[in-house]
């Protein structure tokens, strides 16, 4: 255990905890109303939204796992960069419409929109459940980021005592989310980002200088991993996986409830458009962080006996903490570790709030207590946010990490199946709700099956067409199945005629 690193980490963590509780009084609102607790009263301007979405989307797990993937697999791991390049033009074009209709009709979740647009309870519940199931393993993975830095600092012992720091961190998180709602992660995100930017600037200046320049860093990478394997006569090779992972992940990202929550808490549609131009700053940081995988290779941290224990515990996820410890003085390593640890709190808080909004509004109020009061609705959401986090904590302590990773992989395949109902729905009411539900089911089934054939270990499915293999992200392939089914059945149902319910009007989307 290193006193300086732990000291800096604990002090910064303590400051953020206080900030989380004080945040309840920031731009005060009646926290007994769900949109006040769960959307910050839809009052966040351009800058706060930038910090909140940045903290929400570029998570602690990302900061650990993306460099770890580059460290282990090379160029393939860099797909996170094209992914975050194309996501913003997509957001820019599509999500102002979503914000407008949600604002005008008082929707706080995607399922609310689907309920209003199609008047279909089964379809809305399907969208809500998909969001819940896809997000929960994601919360669990945030703990992994926290766990790795706690492990790197060497606090805690073996067995359950070893998990004590993690439990404490999560109790803190649960408490301030309960009292302050979305205001807490929004305030904390500002601090977290200042720490992240300080860390990354130090990394790109100090580490290449220590290692003898970028040329030396890339020379440490095996030539076969430096770029993607080109296609052969029988297969498109790594090209298909790389491009489809980027496109599929970009389409899926903003369907996640925590991303929706970030979008809907903005105070105008212009805030979303401005942020689509400003959020790429984080993508740039992510790209530089990805290169830390190669820096870790060049620094030879895996061969260093001091880190052998960490690598045996956490695998390649230990690459970034090891590199930081090897390259920086202890006090700065403490700052960097705090950035990662606090970076886990922000998305975990927003995700649990998003799950709470979904469950309360679209399942509890819809199916169980239709006449519940506003205060009861808000109270229920606060309790659900606790339950969701407790579930994530138990999951990560008691079950092998592999399960959380596999479930999160499946979550990406599932969440994209809500795209036709939500995104197409922003433009047209042509699709029939029963057809969308059938398409959703077909997409979930085919996508899960594809992942199953890969033993849930990978998500790039080797599709064979006329003897040529087209490897592609299972989420994208199953989305095509979904769209074909939904469009085909809509043709049939629409031809049959019948009542068409839609509480929204064309003007709501502008």
């Amino acid at each position: 255990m290193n006193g300086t690193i732990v000291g800096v980490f604990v002090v910064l963590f303590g400051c953020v905890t206080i900030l989380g509780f004080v945040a309840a009084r920031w731009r005060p609102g009646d926290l007994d109303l769900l949109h006040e607790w769960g959307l910050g009263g839809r009052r966040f301007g351009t800058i706060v939204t930038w910090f909140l979405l940045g903290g929400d989307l570029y998570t602690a797990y990302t900061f650990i796992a993306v460099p770890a993937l580059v460290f282990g697999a090379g160029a393939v791991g860099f797909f996170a960069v094209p992914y975050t390049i194309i996501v913003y033009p997509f957001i820019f074009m599509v999500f102002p419409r979503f914000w407008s209709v949600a604002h005008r009709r008082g929707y706080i979740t995607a399922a609310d929109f689907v309920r209003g647009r199609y008047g279909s309870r089964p379809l809305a519940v399907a969208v809500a459940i998909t969001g819940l199931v896809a997000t929960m393993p994601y919360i669990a993975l945030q703990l992994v980021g926290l766990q790795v830095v706690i492990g790197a600092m060497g606090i805690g012992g073996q067995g359950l005592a070893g998990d004590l720091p993690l439990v404490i961190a999560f109790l803190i998180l649960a408490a301030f989310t309960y009292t302050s709602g979305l205001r807490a992660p929004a305030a904390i995100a500002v601090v977290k980002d200042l720490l992240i930017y300080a860390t990354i600037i130090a990394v790109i200046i100090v580490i290449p200088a220590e290692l003898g320049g970028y040329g030396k860093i890339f020379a440490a990478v095996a030539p076969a991993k430096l770029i993607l394997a080109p296609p052969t006569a029988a297969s498109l090779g790594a090209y298909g996986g790389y491009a489809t992972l980027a496109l599929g992940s970009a389409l899926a990202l903003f369907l996640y409830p925590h991303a929706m929550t970030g979008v809907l808490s903005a105070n105008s549609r212009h805030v979303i458009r401005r942020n689509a131009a400003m959020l790429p700053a984080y993508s740039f940081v992510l790209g530089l962080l990805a290169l830390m995988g190669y820096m870790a290779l060049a620094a030879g941290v895996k061969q260093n006996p001091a880190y052998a224990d960490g690598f045996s515990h956490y695998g390649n996820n230990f690459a970034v903490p090891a590199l930081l410890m090897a390259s920086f003085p202890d006090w700065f390593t403490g700052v960097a570790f705090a950035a990662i640890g606090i970076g886990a709190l922000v998305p975990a808080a927003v995700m649990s709030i998003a799950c709470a909004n979904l469950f309360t509004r679209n399942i509890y109020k819809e199916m169980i207590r239709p006449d519940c009061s506003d205060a009861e609705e808000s109270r229920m959401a606060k309790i659900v946010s606790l339950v969701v986090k407790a579930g994530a904590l138990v999951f990560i302590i008691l079950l092998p990490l592999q399960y959380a990773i596999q479930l999160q992989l499946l979550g990406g395949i599932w969440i994209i199946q809500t795209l036709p109902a939500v995104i197409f729905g922003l433009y047209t009411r042509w699709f029939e709700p029963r057809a969308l539900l059938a398409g959703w089911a077909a997409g979930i089934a085919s996508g899960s099956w594809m992942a199953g054939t890969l033993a849930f270990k990978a998500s790039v499915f080797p599709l064979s067409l006329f003897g040529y293999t087209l490897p592609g992200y299972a989420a994208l392939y199953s989305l095509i199945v979904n769209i074909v089914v939904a469009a085909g059945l809509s043709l049939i149902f629409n031809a049959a005629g019948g009542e068409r319910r839609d509480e929204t009007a064309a003007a709501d989307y502008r």
Partner: protein
Amino acid sequence: MSEKPSAETRRRRARWPELLLLVPFLAVLWVPSYNSVEPQLAGIPFFYWYQLLWIVISAGLTLLAYLTGE
């Protein structure tokens, strides 16, 4: 209430910058166009600096679409 926006309002709200937003999709999804080590930039292989550069270009195009839109 008019059925469609008049030609005049359409002209006032330029649409072409939004079409430019499709360019980043083509640039980064067409993988063979950048899957190479050379030309390097300060020791960084093309594959990496080219994609990092597109983050900046894409943000610039989005900003342009914002400034000329609504």
